[in-house]
């Protein structure tokens, strides 16, 4: 099915998802396309199906009806462990906050995805540690911070480590789930600019979820999940 010269990286069609045990669907999205290299801002307050959408895109859950295609792969066609492998190989993920494993060093946190994915490891030419350090440098984290325990880093610094972790091994898709909600305004913009730089550099596609409309202008395109999700607001 990869005949089009520029197929969308993420494609949802007639998607509906119902949590087991629920009568009505939590999410119903007729159509969504995200193109290669696009920086998409997904706006939505909590409760409009944001977590559900992310769990479908990352293959944690599969649709009840319809089709989610990521990188030409229909996720519901894959068995559970293949979806896990797919996520490990192709998706970099940034959480809201407290993103890092406290018992690993900064470098170990950054290289973690390469432990679970051979493909992302193979995208790194040369030494993994060197690559991690280079990424951290590009995200303006000084060398001296790299040997500190992660809990001694500020929230802003932690988020940049988390970004480096999502970027390592150049995954095709980066999903950021409200990564700036615990940062102040100046730090937010700085963080997003650094992130966008590196996303461009890795030629990845970014899906940035946030409820903060002031960030909208920084992105190529913006969609409102409330209007996209036909059952939005019922949750």
């Amino acid at each position, binding site marked *: 099915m990869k005949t089009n010269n520029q197929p969308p990286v993420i494609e949802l069609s007639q998607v509906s998802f119902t949590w087991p045990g629920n009568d009505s669907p939590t999410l119903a999205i007729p159509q969504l396309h995200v193109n290669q290299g696009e920086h998409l801002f997904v706006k939505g307050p909590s409760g409009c199906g944001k977590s559900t959408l992310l769990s479908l895109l990352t293959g944690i*859950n599969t649709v009840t009806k319809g089709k989610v295609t990521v990188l030409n792969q229909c996720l519901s066609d894959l068995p559970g462990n293949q979806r896990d*492998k797919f996520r490990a190989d192709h998706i970099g993920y940034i959480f809201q906050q407290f993103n*890092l494993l*406290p018992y690993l060093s900064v470098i170990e946190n950054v290289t973690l995805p390469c432990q679970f994915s051979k493909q992302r490891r193979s995208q790194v030419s040369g030494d993994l540690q060197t690559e991690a350090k280079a990424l951290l440098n590009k995200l303006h984290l000084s060398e001296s911070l790299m040997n500190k325990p992660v809990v001694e880093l500020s929230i802003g610094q932690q988020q940049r480590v988390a970004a480096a972790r999502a970027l390592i091994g150049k995954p095709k898709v980066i999903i950021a789930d409200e990564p700036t909600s615990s940062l102040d305004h100046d730090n937010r913009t700085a963080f997003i600019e650094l992130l966008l730089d590196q996303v461009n550099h890795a030629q990845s596609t970014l899906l940035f979820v946030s409820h903060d409309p002031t960030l909208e202008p920084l992105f190529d395109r913006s969609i409102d999940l409330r209007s996209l999700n036909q059952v939005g607001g019922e949750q």
Partner: protein
Amino acid sequence: MSPTLSLAWKSARNRKVTAILSILTVAISVILLLGVERIRTQAKSSFANTISGTDLIVGGRSGQVNLLLYSVFRIGNATNNIDWKSYQEFSQHRAVEWAIPISLGDSHKGFRVMGTNHSYFEHYRYGQKQNLTFSQGAKFDGLFETVVGADVAKQLGYKIGSEIIIAHGISDVGFSRHDNLPFKVVGILAPTGTPVDKTVHVSLQAIEAIHVGWESGANLGNTPEAHQLNAMDFQPKQITAVMLGLKSKLQTFALQRQINTYTKEPLSAILPGVALHELWGMMSVAEQALMAVSGFVVIAGLLGMLSSLLTSLQERRREMAILRAMGARPKHVFSLLILEASSLTFIGIIAGTLALYLILTLASPIIQQSYGINLSIITLSSYELSLLGLVQLAGTVIGFIPALRAYKQSLSDGMTIRV
């Protein structure tokens, strides 16, 4: 799986205190399990090694355990003696190769005194049919000469030439001492790890000699002097027991039957091996109780580890979610928990085993001294290894409980952080 192992290790190290406590509970239960097993087997072998090569023990009529206890272990007293004539008759029996007469009843500073003759030093065997050997000196020849066991010499500081006073009966108090007739130490036996080490050996004649004037059980004041006694010839009238070695094992039962049905005197003949077995059997209840207790301690230890693992799961949900987002599969999460449980158990086993050896090294001289049980420091037996293997297996199996929970949790939580 090596990234998982290193993650499991680092994660556990992050929860250092609970991890160390889990290791300690496992280690302590392993110490107890192995310790009880050690004491049990070594006490048993120490027991079984006390006498060897003797086919029959003959004494006054009594139960076989009682006869074994007083003749071999020097515990308790004989109910009846044997007439010297009976001894002579059986020692010259055509089936008998050698006979060791023994006469008990006196003591020296808490150690039993045993009257015997030279055939004791030639024929008595212990352990794996080992003969008694002298670390210093030689057999007694004169009337007032004595050969002491290794412990006697060590504890009382006796050397060749030391003079000792023997007491009548087993309570060594002033008025019951044969104090006008000192004995000279002429030989010290090498350690055997048996009651022989705690025995003072004199000749049968000496036993008779020191009791001249003591016929009523107390010194009536007409005890002759040593030089007078040396000139006299003492033929024992009675002895306590006889150990017999036969020319052929085949005759054992026939002779035993003949002694047990001896008409001139009520006698009992026992097979030491059978009596040892019966004696050990009497203690097996205590033995099994000990094993059961240590088994339960192991279970308690593992349950302690289980409860701390389960408690930690709740606070580790974020960790699991992050790992899942980084591409860890539920099977990774599962093996993370299994690895943690089995590594904690493994480290606990190693720590427990090392601690046990440390304790054995420190305590075995004390146990040897106060209980006479020789705890030799030996490598783990295959049975002990299999016990440890069982603990490891149980620890790993127990890890399945939190692992399954974490597996389910990570399936349902996915990457959502629920705290």
